[in-house]
Structures are given as C-alpha cells and as structure tokens.
C-alpha cells in the first residue's frame, strides 16, 4: 500500500488542509453534547431562559462553521483524490509502456485494464473516504471516550470496557477482507479477459455457431465471481451487527452502573445523559469504521495488484544516445540462441550470419522454423538468450532502444491497426512526418490510390484491428506505416501474403529504388529469386545461406520448396 499511497504525498499540503477542515467539523460534533448538557444543567435546571437562548445561538453558529469547513474539505478532497488517481493511472500506464514484451506477457491485457480502472478507483475511494472520515472516525471514538471520562470517569470506564474486543474483531475482518477482495478482483480480470477473447473471436464463434457454448463457459466464470463476491460482501456485512451488539452492550453497562451511582449520588442526571450521547456518537464513529474497513480491504487488495505492476521490471535504462550513420543498415547475428521467456524450448539455435547495407535479404523456412522470432531480435523486442545481435556494428543491447527502433521499419505478420483515421495510423511510423512523405509512403506501398477512392480518403476511420478493410489493404497500410519512418532497415514479416501478384510486383519495384536494407520473410520462391541472398531456416538452425541459384544447387530443402511451388506453380509467379 505504501508504494501506491506514496503518490498522494505530492499533495501533502492539500491533505493537511483537508484534514484541518475535517478537524473543525469534528470539534463541532464533539462539543455539541456539551452544550446540550449546559442547556439542561445550566439552563433548565436553574430556570434561566437567557442561558438557554445563549447556548442556542452558539450552537447555531458552530453548525454553520461546520458546514463551511465541510464544504471546503469536499473541495480539497475531491481535487486531490482525483489528481492522485490520475497520477497513479498515468504512472501505471507509463510503466507498462516501458515493459519489455517479456514482462508484458506476464500480465494479460484485461488484467492491466482492470488494474488501471477498477483498482485505481478502489485506492482513490479509500483516500477520498479517509480524508473525510478516516481521522474523524477514530477521533470521534477517542474524543467521545475522553469526553465521557471527563464528564464522569466511572461511566467512561464502563463505556470503554468492551471496545478492545471490537478493535480486535475489526482488525481481523479487515485482514481477511483484503484476501477475499483479491480473489474478487482476480475473477473480474477473468471476466474481462473472457470478453476480450470473445470480441476478438466473434467471427469464429459465429461461424462455428458456438455462442451457447461460450455463454455456458462465461456463466461458470461469472458464477465464480458471484460466489466470491457474495462471500466477501457477507464478511463485510457481518461487521455492523457485531459492532451494534458490542456498542449497545456498553451502553447497557453504562445505564446499569449509572443507576448504582445515582443511588449514592455520585452522578448528576445531566452527566448520564451526556455520556449516553457520547456512547451513541461512538457508535456512529465505529459504523464509519465499518465503511472504512470495507474500503481498506478493497484498497489493500487493489494496491497490491497495482504495486505488482509498479515493481515489475522495465526495459533497462537506456544508454547514451548513439547517432547512427546516415542510412547505414547492417545486421549481424553472432551465435545467437533464443527461447521465449518462461518457456524452455529453444526456437533459435546458434545462429550466425550477416546482412549487408542495402542488401535485399530474404528469410525462408518451414512453418514454426523460427523466422518471426529471428527478426524480432533485430529491434530488440526480446533479448537474445545467448549470443550477440549487432545492428550497424553495435550490440542491440548497447543501443538506446528508441534510436535503434528509429532506424528500423517493421511490418508485422498480422497487420495491427488502431482505431482512428488512416492518416493517424500512418503517423504511428513517424509523428513528425510531412504530409508529402505520408502520401509518398502510401504510394510506394501501393495503397495511395485505394485510399483516395475511399469517401473520406485519408480521414477515413479505421475500426479496431482495421476490421472493415480487406486483408491486403491492411497489409499495405502497415507497410506504408513502416515506410513513413524512412528506415534504413525495413523488415517485412510475410506481409504480402494477401496481395495479388501485380500489386506485389509493383511494391517490390517501388522498394528497389530505395536506399534501404530489406529483410523479408516470405514463402514465395518468386520473391526469393529477386533477393541478393536467401537465408533458409530449419527448426531454428541455419540450413542454407546464399543466392537463389546457389541454394538451388546446394540445398535439398530449398530445392524441395522450389519444387513444391514449381509443381503446382503459384498464381503470383
């Protein structure tokens, strides 16, 4: 909890001010019974209307003071709570942005969402409530106790006798509560995740007509959430009855003892009345405690989840900026082995090769042979498990990551687009790109004409994942996005699979004139034929490396691939 609430320290002066106003409210609350005692003992008992009116006016005035104090308290608490929540959200989001993909894979998207919304909300609520009642509740309890001791020590003693039991009970409930709320939040994550998957798979589910099956599965998760929520809330709801029982018991004790004291004239009726009043106020204070405990339990669970993110490792602090030589684009793999974090199977084994500046380099290989994993090491999406990956003569681990990625234009296998206009999506490549550059890039990517045919051209809105675009359009947009960067190394991960032959040839022609090192993963021999060199991967190892003609001569596997395409041929050939 400390990690999380450290973020509130920025507003410590506001907290002090808010607490100050709360304190004023509290004082008013505490002195009110004193005045009623005065009205009875100094007014009615001695038949003085003047005194009664005097106290009446004072009570009225302090009520107004309390109101203003309360309103100011609300202003300050609302403000600082929201600032705190905002700061915390931003801190989490920034942290996540700095995660390596390895760290990111430890958290599901849905759980990150719940943490940034629901969990932050819970910690905000606790802060909000605290600044309004946290101090107030114990002060009300303690204050009432002290006052009742002052009014009559014996009665005060009996009033306080049972409170230790209550405090212990509250402590244990709070602890247990934090545990069960952790489970509740966990199930909320699962619900979120389940829905996220369903949204992504909406076509698959419809095509398979498995909506009912999915609903059945969802019902199970939702039932778990329901059951744990019921348990957690029931635990919390048990606080109030226990509290009532103990506090009312204390009141009963006071009445009993008071009747004894009255017999010996050790107490005035007004005193008894005041102590009874304090007892009721104490009860009010403890009920606030009940609320606080619920809020604390939830916030404890939530802040643990938030701390988990804030403590998760981020990418290593970046090294000094390194000015890359203009348009240089060389890549070197030196005895590189790689396995994905949290797995044990090596997907790349002792891979060594070099890619020259401006080379047209093609990577081929069977399904699951490690092609995509290999290229993901170049922009340092993952650290190699063994060996060294060098870009422009410098180990990728020594690069300033942003600079390294600045030199690379990467087109993933699966075209990922974001909600927004086409133009916005292209700017992901380079925020400061000129309009002309954007247009030129889309022209090279063979998508400009298509875009101009859309009704709103570049302002056309793309849905999440670009759902309304065709597969080929999505691929070309993501190629254009990479070109906007004016990279010195362009990486295409099988990104032309949905393109028809003419479009693809035009694309290669447009790229041929560029001063850029091209690293292209492909299944197509036709693409390999145009390459300077071809790297053939087989089960994570280099099977062959050389020009198309060389490989045809030396590599049986390459010949097999060649045959598989010549025999059937390819529509794109």
């Amino acid at each position: 909890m400390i990690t999380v609430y450290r973020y509130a320290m920025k507003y410590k002066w506001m907290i002090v001010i808010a607490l100050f106003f709360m304190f004023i409210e509290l004082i008013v609350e505490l002195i009110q019974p004193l005045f009623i005692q005065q009205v009875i003992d100094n007014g009615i008992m001695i038949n003085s209307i003047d005194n009664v009116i005097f106290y009446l006016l004072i009570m009225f005035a302090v009520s107004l003071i309390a109101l203003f104090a309360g309103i100011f308290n609300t202003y300050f608490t609302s403000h600082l709570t929201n600032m705190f929540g905002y700061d915390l959200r931003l801190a989490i989001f920034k942290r996540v942005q700095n995660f390596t993909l390895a760290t990111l894979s430890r958290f599901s998207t849905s759980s990150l969402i719940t943490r940034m919304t629901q969990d932050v909300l819970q910690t905000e609520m606790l802060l909000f409530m605290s600044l309004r009642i946290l101090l107030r509740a114990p002060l009300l309890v303690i204050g009432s106790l002290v006052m009742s001791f002052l009014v009559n020590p014996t009665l005060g003693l009996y009033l306080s006798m049972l409170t230790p039991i209550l405090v212990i009970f509250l402590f244990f409930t709070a602890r247990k509560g934090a545990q069960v709320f952790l489970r509740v939040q966990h199930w909320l994550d699962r619900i979120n995740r389940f829905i996220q998957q369903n949204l992504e798979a909406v076509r698959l589910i419809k095509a398979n007509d498995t909506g009912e099956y999915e609903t059945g599965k969802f019902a199970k998760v939702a039932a778990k959430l329901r059951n744990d929520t019921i348990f957690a809330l029931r635990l919390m709801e048990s606080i109030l009855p226990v509290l009532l029982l103990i506090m009312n018991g204390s009141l009963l004790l006071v009445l009993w003892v008071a009747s004894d004291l009255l017999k010996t004239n050790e107490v005035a009726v007004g005193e008894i009345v005041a102590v009874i009043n304090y007892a009721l106020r104490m009860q009010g204070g403890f009920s606030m405690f009940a609320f606080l405990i619920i809020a604390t339990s939830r916030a404890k669970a939530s802040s643990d989840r938030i701390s988990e993110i804030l403590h998760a490792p981020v990418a290593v602090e970046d090294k000094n900026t390194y000015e890359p030589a203009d348009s240089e684009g060389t890549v070197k793999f030196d005895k590189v082995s790689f396995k994905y974090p949290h797995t044990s199977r090596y997907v790349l084994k002792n891979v060594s090769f070099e890619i020259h500046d401006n080379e047209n380099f093609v990577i081929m290989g069977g399904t699951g042979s490690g092609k995509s994993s290999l290229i993901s090491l170049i922009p340092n999406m993952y650290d190699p498990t063994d060996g060294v990956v060098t870009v422009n003569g410098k180990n990728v681990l020594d690069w300033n990551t942003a600079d390294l990625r600045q030199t690379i234009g990467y087109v993933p296998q699966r075209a990922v687009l974001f909600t927004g206009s086409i133009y916005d999506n292209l700017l992901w490549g380079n925020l400061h790109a000129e309009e002309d550059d954007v247009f030129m890039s889309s022209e090279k990517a063979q998508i400009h004409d298509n875009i101009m045919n859309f009704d709103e051209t570049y302002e056309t809105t793309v849905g999440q994942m670009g759902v309304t675009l065709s597969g080929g359009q999505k691929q070309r947009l993501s190629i254009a996005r990479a070109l906007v960067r004016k990279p010195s190394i362009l990486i295409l991960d099988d990104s032309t699979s949905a393109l028809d032959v003419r479009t693809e040839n035009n694309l290669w022609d447009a790229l041929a004139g560029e001063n850029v090192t091209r690293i292209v993963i492909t299944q197509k021999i036709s693409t390999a034929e145009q390459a300077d060199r071809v790297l053939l991967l087989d089960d994570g190892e280099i099977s062959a490396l050389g020009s198309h003609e060389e490989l045809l001569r030396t590599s049986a596997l390459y010949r097999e691939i060649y045959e598989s395409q010549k025999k059937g041929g390819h529509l794109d050939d």
Partner: protein
Amino acid sequence: MTNFFARPFGHERLITKEDIGKNKRSNKNKADNMGQTLKRIWQFMRGERKRLYFIISLVVVTSLLSIVGPFLVGRIVDYYFIPREFDGLFRVLMILLASYVLLSATTFIQAYLMVGLSQRTIYNLRHHLFEHMQELPVTFYDKRQHGELMSRMTNDIETLSQTMNSSFIQFTTSIVTLLGTFSVMLYLSPLLTFLTALIIPILIVSVRFITNRTGPLYKMRQRRTGELNGYIEEIVSGQEIVKVFSQEERAVRNFEMRAKNLREVTFWANLYSGFIPKIMNMLNNISFTIVAGAGGILALTTNGIVTVGTIVVFAEYARQFTRPLADLSNQLNQVLSAIAGAERVFQILDTPAEADEGKITDKTLRGHIEFKDVTFSYSREQQVPTIRNLSFEVASGESVALIGATGAGKTTVMQLLARFYEADSGSILIDGEDIKDYSRTNIRSQTAFVLQDPYLFEATIRENIRYGRMNATDDEVIEAAKVANAHDFIMTLEQGYDTVLDLDEGFISQGQKQLISIARALITDPAILLLDEATSSIDTITELKIQESLERLMKGRTSIIIAHRLNTIKAVDRIFVLEQGELLEAGTEEELLALEGKYYDMVNQ
C-alpha cells in the same frame, strides 16, 4: 474567492447553467427513462421477489427495533433516573438487552440475504448481457472498441452491483425509520416535531441542486471510463507495434488526455455528491440546536409539557430523523450513478440481435449455393458497393476458387454466405431456399469456415481443435491434427496437446495457428466448406502435404476457397474471377485459359 468557486484548482466547469436548465425542462423525460431503467432492473429480479419482500419485512423489524432502543433509554432516564426510582429497572434493562440482541440478529440476516440476492441478480444481468452479445450481428462489433464493450461488462455492472447491495435495505430502512421516528416524535411533542421538520424544505432544495448536477455527470463519467478502457485495451493489445515504432510517448500522451477527461468529470461528480453529507451534518446540528434550545425554553415556560427526558429522547430522534433523510439523498445519488451504468448495459441489450426469423431449423444441407443479383456495401456512405449485382451458382458438392485483386470482394462473398452480413439487395439461396429463411444455426452448424486471420482461444490445443465439433473424441482430435500436419509440431511442445496457448506468448507461429485452425475445420463434418486464405502463412512444402487432405475434405462437399497458389486453385472444379465486386470470369481452368482473359493474364504474367 469567487474565482476559486468558478474554477476550483483549475477544473473547468463541465455542465453549465443552461445544461441544468435543459435538464430541468427535460426532467419528465428523464424521469421516464429512469423509471424504465429501474423497471428493467426489477425484471431481472424475477424469482427473487419473494425473498426481497421477506428482506423488506425484516428491514421493517430492524428499523423499528432501532427506534425502540433510544425510546427505552429515554424512558429509563425519565421514569427511573430522575425520580431515582430503581424498582423494575432491571426488567426494563433486560427488555433493552433483548431488543439489542434481536437488532443485531435481524441486521445480519437481512444483509446476508440481500448480498446473495443482489449478486444473483447481477449474475443474471451479466449472463443475459453476454448471451445477447453472442447474438449481435458482426456489424455491431466492427464499429466498437473492445475495451469499451468490456467496460460495460465490468465497470458499469460493478457500479450497479455496489448500489443494489445497499440501496434496497437503505431505502426501506430510511423510510421506516423516518415514519417511525416521526410518529414517536409527534406523540412526544407535536410542537418540537414541527420545529424539527423545518429543515425538510432546505433539504429538498439542496438535494435537488446536487442531483441535477450529479445525474449528467455520472453518465459522462461512465462514458469516459469506457473510452479510457477502450484506449488501454487497444494500446496494450498492440503493444508490439507501439514498441517497434517507439511511440510510447504518443501512447502516453493520448492516454493522458483520456485520463484527464475522466479526472475532470470525476472531480465534479465527487464534489457535488460529497456536499450531501456535509449539508446533512449541518441540518443535523441545526435540528439538534432546535431541539435543545426550543426544548429548553419549552421546558421552562410550559411547566412540564416538555420534560428533560423528552429533550434527551428528542435530541436522539432528531438525529435519527435527519439520518434517514441523509441516507435517502445519498442513496438517490448512488442510484443515479448505478442508472448511468445500467443504461449503458441496456443500450447493448436493446441493440437488435442478428435477424433470425428463419423457419427452417433442422434441414440437412446438400450445399447448393446460388447468389442472385447480390449487392452489398459495408456502410451506407460507400459510393461504390463492395459487391455489385453478383450472380453465380455452385452445385452441391462442387468446389470453387475465388480469385481477384485485393479488395475485389472475395472475403465479403464468404462473409455473406456465413450470414455475418445481410445483402442490401438480391438474394442468396442455399438448396433453393433464401438463407434468410434458415435459422442461423441450421446453416452455421453445417458450414466450416477457416478465417483469414486464424484465432485461437486461450485454452489447450486439444480444446482448440475440438472447437470445430464439441463431441469429438481425443483420437479424432489427434487424427485431425495429423491430417492438418500439426501433429508433429504439437508433439515437440512439452505438454503436447495439453499445451495451453497463451495469446501473448510468441511461441506459436502464425503458420502453426493456421495449421491448428485447419485441424479445427477438418474435425467438423460440414456440407459447406469455406477456406479464406487458410494456408497463407504456411510454407509451401507443408502446404503440399495438407493439400491432399484438403482435397479429400472437399470431396463431396460444396467448397469455396480463396487462395493464391496455383496448386490449390487447380484442385477445384471451377474458378471465379472477381473484380471490384463483380464476377468477371467463371469456368474450369481450361475454359478460363482458353478465354485468354483476366485469368490467363494472371497466370502468364
């Protein structure tokens, strides 16, 4: 100072005086909406209503008991302490004890039952919402951010859940306590009661002031929460892209903007709703003052009409009188925020489900397909339709390849056939009947569709393959995987078929995903087979191996495939060449080659 209230801490006002005025004018409308929403929530409590009535009667008992306590205490002061008369005091104390014990018991039971009831209702609502989401058309999802929809399922429903738990009990308690205390107060002293009730008009005015503002603010808050959720979901899901383009700062900046929007609206919502307890506190203090002061004066001037005991009791009752009022207004606010959430949930429930008026529910399909003059656009603003006057026929058991440039409408044809979208004009017939006359299940259960972008669930590989046919045996799963050439790579995984696919891990390649989704299609026994670039990420050697299985699979079934590779295309009976949504050429390979048209060009390029 005025400046501070106009823009406290720099927070700009989100709702203006006009908004509130407008709000007031449309109040009747709003109340209707609110009533509607409440009524619908009520409908979800069907089956729980008897229990609810029981809880409400328990609440009445609890509330009465909490009135009895202070009443007895007052009696003790008046009848025993002041006259110093202690006979029978023990008995009264015992009655008091009994009432206290009973109070705790009923308080616990009512809360216990209510928690169960509200959570079951919430569960029903969630379940119903999810069920409905399964029936919404694809077009509904095309336009919406996933995270925003997720927010409705969690944030909005959670808001409702938290309110339901407390509101029913609080409302009843407040009303009963209010009536109870009011009666006792009247009985004790009508005059003091009247004086205490003076605070009610102040209360109503201030509560209206607040709810007029919080109502719209809550709606805004729920909406902005959804927007933030949507943004987080997209960015985190697409994190690889953010990283590789080093756009972390841009992501943070956009996030900042949305988080700020949420912060601003929450500030105002919290501020206004936070006023309620403060105002209540003041009213509480004032009524206390009235009772103490006026009671004191009355006690002195009227000689015994108002006793000291009455003042004591009244002081406590005045508190008990204002508390339910405070609770009611607090609840009103809570309910407003829950309604803001519920409305967003009902918005989805109100979206009409996919049309499914088909009367034909259990027809075994032979797989004859006919497109008759079909035209279709994804959006109304589109100038050129995606599919234009498309007509063709595919015989039962025939296989057809769709080819054409990207954006020619190939995928769209398949999606129309799977009824993801409805044609704007023209009709699509299966076995001579319009597909609209079939129930969706009837068609989809006999169609296998391998999608362009293979999707796998976060589940074991076995479960993923079995997704094609739920009752497939383990052996059938393995058989399908073998035929799809997925078996070998699956066996290299440590847990084999029981490997849980983690969506975020990269160790299953795109091509392997395609192999699994082909296995998933192989395991079904469909009358119609739709393959949309099913092997695009698979290497050609593996593809050749699968080819044979696919050909076997296509035999005897109507198959429509989209592919680029000639060997795949050559295996089909006929080829359709699409261009800009129109059918350009159709025929067997020889026919098309003889035609020397578009297909001929494509092959001989």
